[in-house]
């Protein structure tokens, strides 16, 4: 049953129908996606793209209209398929009658952990997310950032093989965000698959190796981060250059900018960049640097969604 993928979906779809079936909304429209084991995967998309519905179908909180989803090779509908998953929902509402430790104990027990194991893990988890002083305090007193960190501890307590995190750093201050990133990096090093659903593109770009962009319920773009953000062009930086030569190189470039006595040229292709280098070197101009440039994930996202 061992699968090389943590998540496999084929033609997964969810159609919501109004009460009298007059109107239907295709929240997810035939998504086929494979998430390899051990990777960090970012799921992106504008509001209403179907990200949350897709995640809920993976967790069997929403029944697919068609298609199927496998978690580590098991049908996502089976409760056992959810055993290796640690999940942090976006708008979580942990019952406020719990203390931090009590809440971890409850969800760990639901994950099948025995009492002795839970007693050992709870202080470790509280320490991991920086809440060791707060274990016996009712969570009604926690700030949003603290609840988010506690939620992460809840997701991690049973040492899952995959984390599904919905906006994991939502409401967390910069220091807290860094702590969460550190925790996730350690998980990644241990081979845990991390699936992040987030609006924070910079964060996803920083952390995820693979991404998929959903739009109108379909996968609009997917692939490895460096492939998606690579290939935008080349940047050539030169020092003092005669005006006429600058104009000649400028004619081949897509853009030009001056800063602190240097001039940056941006070229659309390697060939144009090489032609510019030939021109400059023929006049014995000093070249400071030449490097391929990449798109930001935000640029890729906007290009994809705006199509």
């Amino acid at each position: 049953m061992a699968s090389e993928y943590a998540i496999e979906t084929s033609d997964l779809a969810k159609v919501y129908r109004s009460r009298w079936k007059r109107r239907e909304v295709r929240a997810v429209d035939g998504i086929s996606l494979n998430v390899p084991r051990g990777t960090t995967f970012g799921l992106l998309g504008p509001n209403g793209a179907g990200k949350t519905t897709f995640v809920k179908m993976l967790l069997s909180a929403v029944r697919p209209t068609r298609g199927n989803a496998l978690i580590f090779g098991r049908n996502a509908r089976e409760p056992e398929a959810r055993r290796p998953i640690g999940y942090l929902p976006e708008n979580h509402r942990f019952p406020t009658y719990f203390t931090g430790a009590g809440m971890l104990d409850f969800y760990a027990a639901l994950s099948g952990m025995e009492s002795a194991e839970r007693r050992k893990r709870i202080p470790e988890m509280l320490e991991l997310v920086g809440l060791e002083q707060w274990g016996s305090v009712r969570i009604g007193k926690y700030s949003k950032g603290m609840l988010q960190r506690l939620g992460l501890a809840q997701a991690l307590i049973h040492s899952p093989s995959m984390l599904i995190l919905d906006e994991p750093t939502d409401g967390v201050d910069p220091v807290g965000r860094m702590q969460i990133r550190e925790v996730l990096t350690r998980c990644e090093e241990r081979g845990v698959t991390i699936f992040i659903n987030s609006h924070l593109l910079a964060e996803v770009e920083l952390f995820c190796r693979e991404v998929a962009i959903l739009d109108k319920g379909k996968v609009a773009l997917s692939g490895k981060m460096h492939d998606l953000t690579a290939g935008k062009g080349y940047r050539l930086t030169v020092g003092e250059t005669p005006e006429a030569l600058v104009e000649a190189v400028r004619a081949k470039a897509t853009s030009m900018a001056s800063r602190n006595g240097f001039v940056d040229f941006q070229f659309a292709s390697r060939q144009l960049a090489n032609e510019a280098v030939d021109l400059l070197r023929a006049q014995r101009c000093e070249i400071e640097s030449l490097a391929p440039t990449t798109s930001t994930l935000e640029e890729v996202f906007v290009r994809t969604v705006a199509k």
Partner: protein
Amino acid sequence: MTATVALIRDTFREAFARKIFWGLFGLSTVMILFFLFLLRIDLMEGGVAFVSAFGRINGTRDVDKLVRGVYGGIAAFLYTWGMFLAVFASAGLIPSVLEPGRIELLLSKPVSRTHILLGRYVGNVLVVSCNIIYLVLGVWTILGIKTGIWSPLFLISIATTIFAFAVLLSVVILIGVLFESAALATMVAAALMVMSLILAQTSVMLRLLSSEWSRQIWRTLYYSLPKIYDLGGMTLNAIQSRSFDGFMPIWTSALFAAVVLGCSLLIFARRDF
């Protein structure tokens, strides 16, 4: 097993936090204290004297009758106000689990939906059971110490009250799963209690109704709906050592609860959250 215990403990924890457990516990305590107060003012002796003054045979038999009467009164209280309060207090425990942001996390755990709902159901029954046992045992002990009459038949009301509550709770669960409304669940359960009182007058009504189809509708309603009133009557008869007409109210009510609970589980299993 670990998950089952966790779900039941969670129901208790929520019942404590919402003051449901303590509310019921407080009311039970007030009732027990009331009996302790009666003990102090020697009402039992007064009652015995009253019975004697009206010329009936004195002695243990009359005291026994009086005690059984008191037990019957408590059982009747449990079946009306006690039951209503228990349903009212429990009605919120199902919609709270279905709140967005809470249910998704529960469903993400390796526990089936049937398990989650049954865990809540059992937890809820146990919360109320603790209070019923406390109240009945408390009153039974006080009266037993005072009168020296230990009627174990009164303890039957523990089982029958818990059973009747479990039947009504199945309706609360169904309404909770369908509409997530504690108020509506209480209303429907209370309506069933009232209907059971009306439908229990079957023998009279079947004589009064003129057409066969209306008699058939009455019979269908009587046999298909839970018989809270009849169960109360059975308990009262049992406490007072009177005979009763078979166990039909028990098994038809149990069947009703099983069907309603089955529907709740089916709806819960198919719902999107």
